[in-house]
């Protein structure tokens, strides 16, 4: 008996020791809150009716690539960082189309544009400090641009490096600074010279990646410890891919930049969990407060949400994103116009919508509604989107002579994107192709299909606006000059002289002007639909879904970036 007891005791002792180690190991790192959102802190009632202060929990299915604005190029990162890193200009904190208008950020006014659209001049506000207390100077902006080029930020190859004079030379190390940017620390004046007029450059300046940061932060992605910024909130306690917190910037109240609210809640705890269904369940039962808008609420939960939480749930078409299927126009079988038409003609958008929990608005045009140039009056060239005309599609495939051609359908893994491509693969087989589905894990999907040598035939793509200008869609995704050997975004290898010429010409028109006259872009968009270069299958309506502790009516759901953190408020 004695021996037996000893052996068990020895094992238990080992176990206890290990438990102690486990518990102690955790004490050193940052503390993340418990799963329930019971913590509320000291919340005081404000004049507006809601409270100010308190802590809320936000659940999200996909982690930001990084919270360092110099690297991140995801909607999950931008929705946080546009609040944390205010740029020279920024967007209005408002719902709907007003949210696409620019206002001055850390600059005193919107940029003065001269030299035929090639020179931008702004002046920095006085008395700005970073969230670490350090004063802001004009040359910090130049540093932010240098950093975004060097790391590089995911959008730099498109929007910064080739656009600013000296950007390429700096990127390749041929120059020590960017010759096209001059900054005067004593007057606060910043001048930016562009290589060619770029109508959307105002919008580029609003990107969080060009938000102002202090000099000296290494030219390297800092995912655990992103740089200080100028904004109502700042990020801390980052555990990559798991959690982070957004807290009030103690220096913000002294600065008071007009148009940028100070925010209500003291702290937002972000929790990342790939199980979107349980995220939605936890918001439904109020153990978490905010559901990330970029995640799709599983359709199976919608009936319950509609019956139990109708006062804190709605679907909103932000109008800035498009879901589409690329059709490789350089390779068989979709180099054939009739084969592409067959896809557009027969595609059952109703089915796609059901797979997307009923959140898709049927569509046939590439540009979504909030982007100037979206055809509002034209009718769809190949029939109104709906159930699709399968018989006609079969006939078109026969006519095209491409029947029986093998097709690989490239597909992401996460729901409902995988299910969309599963349906699409079956559809291609129905109309006469020999299609197989190829699944690539989400984080590597775009770099995989971005390799030109694979010449992907067809598959899923989506695009969410960087800014409300069609050049963000056409210049990146359908311009012949955008076909690259690696990280190719023009996956369908669309290289049409008309589109290329229009992108070059219309890309110079400032965004502000487009809001009044976008007929030329509209013609391009109708042309693309007619040529069936892409099969657009819907504009996503995104969920605004919060717990019953949040003041639902005061929420701002911004058109470019989604949630406006400064509008979160406890009842």
């Amino acid at each position: 008996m004695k021996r037996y007891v000893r052996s068990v005791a020895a094992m238990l002792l080992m176990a206890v020791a290990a438990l102690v180690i486990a518990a102690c190991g955790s004490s050193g790192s940052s503390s993340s809150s418990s799963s329930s959102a019971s913590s509320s802190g000291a919340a005081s009632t404000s004049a507006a009716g809601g409270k100010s202060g308190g802590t809320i929990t936000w659940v999200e299915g996909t982690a930001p690539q990084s919270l360092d604005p110099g690297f991140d190029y995801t909607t999950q990162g931008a929705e946080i960082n546009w609040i944390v890193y205010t740029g020279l200009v920024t967007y209005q904190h408002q719902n709907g189309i007003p949210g696409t208008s620019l206002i001055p950020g850390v600059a005193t006014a919107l940029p003065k544009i001269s030299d035929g659209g090639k020179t931008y001049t702004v002046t920095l506000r006085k008395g700005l400090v970073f969230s670490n207390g350090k004063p802001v100077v004009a040359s910090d902006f130049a540093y932010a641009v240098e950093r975004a080029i060097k790391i590089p930020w995911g959008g730099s190859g498109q929007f910064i490096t080739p656009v600013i004079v000296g950007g390429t030379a700096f990127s390749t190390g041929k120059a020590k600074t960017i010759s096209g940017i001059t900054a005067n620390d004593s007057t606060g004046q910043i001048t930016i010279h562009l290589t060619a007029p770029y109508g959307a450059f105002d919008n580029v300046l609003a990107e969080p990646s060009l938000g102002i940061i202090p000099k000296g932060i290494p030219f390297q992605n800092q995912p655990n410890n992103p740089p200080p910024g100028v904004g109502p909130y700042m990020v801390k306690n980052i555990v990559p891919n798991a959690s982070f917190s957004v807290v009030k910037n103690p220096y913000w109240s002294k600065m008071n930049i007009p148009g940028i609210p100070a925010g209500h809640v003291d702290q937002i705890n972000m929790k990342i969990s790939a199980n979107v269904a349980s995220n939605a369940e936890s918001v439904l039962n109020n153990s978490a407060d905010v559901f990330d808008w970029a995640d799709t609420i599983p359709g199976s939960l919608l009936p319950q949400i509609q019956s139990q939480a109708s006062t804190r749930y709605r679907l909103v078409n932000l109008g800035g994103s498009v879901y589409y299927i690329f059709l490789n126009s350089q390779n068989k079988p979709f180099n054939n116009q009739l084969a592409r038409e067959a896809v557009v003609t027969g595609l059952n958008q109703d089915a796609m919508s059901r797979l997307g929990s009923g959140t898709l608005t049927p569509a046939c045009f590439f540009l979504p509604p909030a982007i100037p140039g979206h055809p509002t009056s034209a009718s769809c060239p190949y029939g109104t989107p709906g159930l699709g005309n399968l018989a006609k599609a079969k006939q078109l495939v026969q006519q095209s002579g491409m029947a029986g051609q093998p097709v690989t359908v490239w597909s992401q893994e996460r729901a409902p994107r995988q299910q969309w491509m599963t349906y699409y693969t079956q559809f291609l087989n129905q109309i006469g192709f020999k299609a197989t589905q190829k699944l690539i894990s989400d984080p590597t999907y775009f770099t995989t299909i971005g390799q030109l040598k694979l010449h992907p035939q067809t598959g899923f793509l989506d695009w969410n606006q960087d800014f409300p200008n069609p050049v963000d869609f056409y210049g990146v995704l359908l311009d012949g000059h955008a076909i690259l050997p690696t990280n190719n975004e023009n996956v369908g290898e669309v290289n049409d002289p008309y589109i290329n010429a229009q992108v070059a010409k219309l890309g110079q028109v400032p965004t502000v002007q487009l809001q009044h006259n976008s007929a030329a872009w509209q013609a391009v968009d109708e042309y693309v639909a007619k040529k069936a270069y892409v099969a657009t299958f819907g504009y996503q309506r995104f969920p605004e879904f919060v717990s019953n502790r949040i003041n639902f009516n005061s929420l701002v759901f911004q058109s470019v970036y989604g949630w406006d953190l400064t509008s979160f408020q406890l009842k």
Partner: protein
Amino acid sequence: MATTSASGTEFSAGLNAGFEADEELPPGLGPWRLAWRRLRRNHVALFFGGLFLLIVVMCALAPVYASDVAHTGPNVGNITGTVTVGGHPENIVSLTGIPIGPTYHSRYFFGADANGRDTAVRLLYGGRNSLEIGFIATIITMVLAMIVGIIAGYHRGIADGLISRGMDIIWAFPAVLLGVTLGTVLAVGGIGPIHGNNLFVPAFVIGIVYIPYVGKPVRAQVLQMREREFIDAARQQGLSHTRIMFSEILPNLASTVIVFIPLILANAILLEAALSYLGVGVQPPNPSWGNMISDGISTIPAAFHNVLVPGVMLVLCVMSINIFGDGLRDALDPRAKVRIAH
């Protein structure tokens, strides 16, 4: 067991208690007849063996069910269609994407999945894929493990050193981690001319992962066996090494092999499910129990049948193999008499 921790240790210990071949036989009965006698008395094991056979037959008949009963295929979806239940047409998939639950009629007996495909049909086809992969993987494991185990045990020396270290290496990887890594590599690139979508890819991955679990005990047994008289005798007769390995050693490993087959099969099916769940096993749209569960998780909670149906089937199948295998081990294990006498 091997699904989470996949610890190699689980098997080794279970087997060390097994097969030193000295057996006292009642006169007139061969070891196989004796084993069969013992197995026949174990009704629980026989019942679950029968259940497993039933599952295999059902899955084998999947095409018959699909064409004659359900009138659809495993990859045929009908998202915007309707099915008549109790005289009323009902959406197969609702406007917000909720698939219909079990109808218990010929069409959509177990309901539909998110893509409007018949869950019952996919269950049977998925079972076919899962079982096929399980069997192929088991064959790969058994054949390769026997080869390396016999060579290592018989030749000893350098060959043994290399093979044993090689098996240590596979062993030190957690099975799921190794499977997922291999699966990720091969799902993108395929194996030479074999496309990444081919069922052979996951079967190959799984087959490799389990080699040491069989190879180590085989090696140990051969090491012991080569010191025995009948091998000496064969050597003195001038038989070649190959001949000895095949005609003298191999037959004596039969009971080990038979006991291992259900064990590896059960674990291969579980690992296949895990790999498919993680997206590196059977590639969609082809069903397997693992990827059906994985797909079904996105339709929880309104369509829980999409997780429950393949999950229960998977558990039943693996459990019946395990229980039958356990009975088989009892029957072949010479010490089983201890158990009966106790």
